[in-house]
């Protein structure tokens, strides 16, 4: 008996609850009337998430939705606003969407800071008409057929986002009014990228516009807070690419960010905040992101390391690498984990990259050349180090060694040039550069040694002078005493 009473009570309250919702929608006289005349808006609104939550037309447009008298329903006295324009559109939305209590009432868990983010974003700036924000909520979400973000019909569903953003960003006439320098081919490039190809196939996981730029909180790429500001790019990309679980189905490594962070590029960008250092997009492209092909690696690296790339292209290694289908720069320097190039890379020791291919029984002269080049560069390296120690010793002794210090920079420059010249793999050219450096180091050594010698000479000179002056003073003192005794 007790069970029956509980079931009946539950049934009664459920009927009351769902019945009330049905009543609310069905009693919206605006909707009833507009639907009856075949209004497109009313038709779209039937599929709208707001309709399902019982939100009436009057909640956005004002007026009285409870009366079927059109004059009364759409009277100013009833608060009828008509079609909101400009910022009034967003104001209608944020009455609920910026109000946590209201959103809770409708059982929504979506954040309520979208408007605050939008207002501070690049889209929150004033439009060219000077009276409203560039972007209103309906620009991306539509007006009457709004569906949940995870509904494939939504214009902000991952596979639809490129087209939604492209409505403005691919329109040169529209974009020229705001940022004439900003390219309008992002969507076009995106469609050629690995992300874009997968996205076009209906995969919602690969990155699209908002994955990197954000949604409501999009900031200019020049803003250090932006997710696509150079120093933030690696962490933005790693958001997906370091997530093993997320990337599992794509079967690609997820250690790129970890390796990059330890690389010379990563240290420069992430630790030294040198924004001229390459981030992920510098090599892979941004909107057209794709791994560079074997043939194009030297071109990609060569955008910054131009001389190295040029020397390599005219070196005997170019043909050899092409024949063996070896990626040019990365074969010796790795890709994401590029460490500072030291002399260790050169030569025939176990650590040296040359020894990977050139063995002692190598029929070509590669093994011998690598060995000699290593000896030469080591000799320049140690000469520079010794000179530096000598110059600093002279400097610490208070000697003026400005010239030697200046020449020391020349020696350093020659060492850097020698390292670059390694990429020519031409012994004669390489020796010429190293010898230029060795000549400078000899000059520096002579000057530094002369300065140190001068330091000791000064002290000896001082000792002799002090002795002579003191002797004269003593003689004078004795003479004065003799004079005053008289």
């Amino acid at each position, binding site marked *: 008996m007790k069970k029956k009473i509980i079931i009946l009570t539950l049934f009664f309250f459920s009927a009351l609850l769902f019945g009330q919702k049905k009543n609310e929608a069905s009693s919206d006289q605006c909707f009833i009337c507009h639907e009856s005349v075949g209004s497109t808006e009313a038709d779209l609104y039937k599929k709208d998430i707001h309709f399902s939550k019982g939100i009436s037309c009057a909640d956005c447009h004002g007026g009285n939705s409870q009366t079927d008298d059109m004059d009364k329903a759409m009277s100013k006295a009833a608060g009828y606003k008509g079609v909101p324009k400009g910022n009034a559109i967003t104001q209608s939305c944020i009455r609920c969407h910026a109000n946590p209590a209201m959103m809770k009432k409708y059982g929504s868990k979506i954040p309520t800071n979208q408007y605050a983010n939008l207002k501070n974003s690049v889209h929150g700036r004033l439009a060219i008409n000077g009276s409203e924000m560039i972007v209103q909520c309906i620009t991306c979400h539509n007006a009457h057929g709004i569906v949940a973000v995870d509904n494939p019909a939504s214009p902000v569903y991952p596979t639809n986002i490129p087209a939604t953003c492209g409505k403005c960003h691919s329109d040169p006439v529209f974009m020229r009014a705001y940022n004439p320098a900003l390219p309008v081919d992002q969507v076009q490039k995106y469609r050629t990228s690995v992300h874009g190809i997968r996205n076009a196939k209906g995969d919602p996981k690969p990155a699209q516009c908002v994955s990197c730029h954000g949604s409501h909180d999009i900031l200019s790429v020049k803003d250090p807070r932006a997710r696509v500001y150079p120093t933030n790019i690696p962490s933005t990309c790693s958001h997906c690419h370091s997530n093993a679980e997320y990337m599992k189905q794509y079967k690609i490594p997820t250690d790129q960010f970890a390796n990059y962070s330890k690389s010379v590029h990563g240290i420069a960008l992430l630790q030294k905040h040198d924004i001229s250092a390459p981030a992920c997009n510098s090599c892979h492209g941004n909107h057209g992101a794709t791994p560079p092909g074997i043939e194009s690696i030297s071109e990609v690296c060569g955008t910054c390391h131009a001389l190295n790339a040029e020397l390599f292209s005219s070196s005997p290694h170019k043909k050899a690498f092409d024949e063996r289908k070896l990626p040019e720069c990365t074969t010796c320097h790795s890709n994401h984990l590029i460490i500072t190039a030291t002399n260790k890379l050169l030569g025939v020791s176990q650590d040296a990259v040359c020894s990977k291919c050139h063995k002692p029984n190598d029929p070509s002269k590669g093994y011998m050349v690598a060995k000699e080049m290593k000896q030469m560069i080591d000799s320049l390296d140690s000469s520079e180090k010794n000179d530096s120690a000598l110059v600093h010793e002279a400097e610490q002794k208070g000697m*003026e060694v400005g010239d030697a210090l200046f020449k020391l920079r020349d020696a350093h420059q020659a060492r850097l040039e020698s390292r670059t010249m390694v990429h020519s793999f031409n012994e004669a050219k390489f020796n010429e550069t190293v010898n230029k450096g060795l000549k400078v180091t000899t000059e520096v050594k002579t000057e530094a040694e002369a300065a140190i010698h001068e330091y000791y000479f000064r*002290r000896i*000179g001082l000792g002799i002078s002090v002795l002579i002056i003191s002797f004269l*003073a003593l003689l004078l003192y004795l003479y004065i005493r003799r004079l005053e005794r008289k």
Partner: protein
Amino acid sequence: MKNYFKCLYNWIDERVQLEDLVKFMGKKYVPVHRHSIWYYFGGVSLFFFIIQVTTGILLLFYYKGSSDLAFESVQFIMSKVQFGWLVRSIHAWAANLFILSAFVHMFSVYFEKAYRKPREMTWITGMLMFFMCLGFGFSGYLLPWNTLSFFATKVGTDIAGNVPIIGGPLKVFIRGGDDVTGATLSRLFGFHVALFPGIFTILLGIHLILIQRQGISEPVHFSEKPASEKKTMPFFPNFLLRDLLLWLIVLNVLAILAVFLPADLGIKANPFASAPAGIKPEWYFLFMFQSLKYFPSHILFADGETVGILLFGAAGVLWLLIPFWDRKSSRGEQNRFVNYLGLFAVIFIIILTFLGWLS
């Protein structure tokens, strides 16, 4: 050898009656008392001036007074010119010791009341030379055109610009424009090597003639003694030889300082760089610089720093004119106020310099 000197002496004596001068100097006596040591600081200051002139001329052979070349020319002197490093270091050290010995000389004359009648003019010329010493220091400091000297000159001329009425034009006059530029360097170089030495030499000549004419001043307590109790020493040769002995000792100290603590050159001035932190003037301006820091930003309706500068100006004028308002000392009476004032000045300068050095 002795005969050769005798011959040379006789040759000059025949023409300029050197004998009269020797007799005149032989008649001059220097009072001997417990404060006689202070008499030597005038001679030491003179010795430093001679060193400054000599080393200054040597530096002039290589120094180039333009903002493009000044730093490099000093660098050249320090590294390429034979003993250039020594000449510059001695010039820099002697400049500091010159001002120090001038300070000591000035205060010793003050406490001995040697400025009293009839030596008012000697005091005035001495004080003017002292101010010129500071001017030498200020103008010479910028000449290497390094970062420190550039910004110290900027700060120094900014302070001068706060003098009421004449401050603005004075600042523009010193700088040769609105800011410290190459024009300032050329101007201060001109002051340092031509204008100031010229005026200084005239003042020095008057100062020395007055000393020779009026003799060495006797302190009040000494002059009150009966003639039989007054202990003296001949100026020539005794005092002069003692002076020479001290000069040799000072030369030794100077050589040691120049070798062990050579003047450094720093980094070339960059007018577009920001001023290094904690920029300070040379030690002899430090007490004034530090004092100005303690003045509030506003005193009644006036700018605090301006009031400070006016107070220092007034104190300088009072100090300069002391022979005219210290009547008691002129009458041979003791003036405790003047003693306490001098003591206060010495303590004030030492403490403020120390605080400035610490800050």
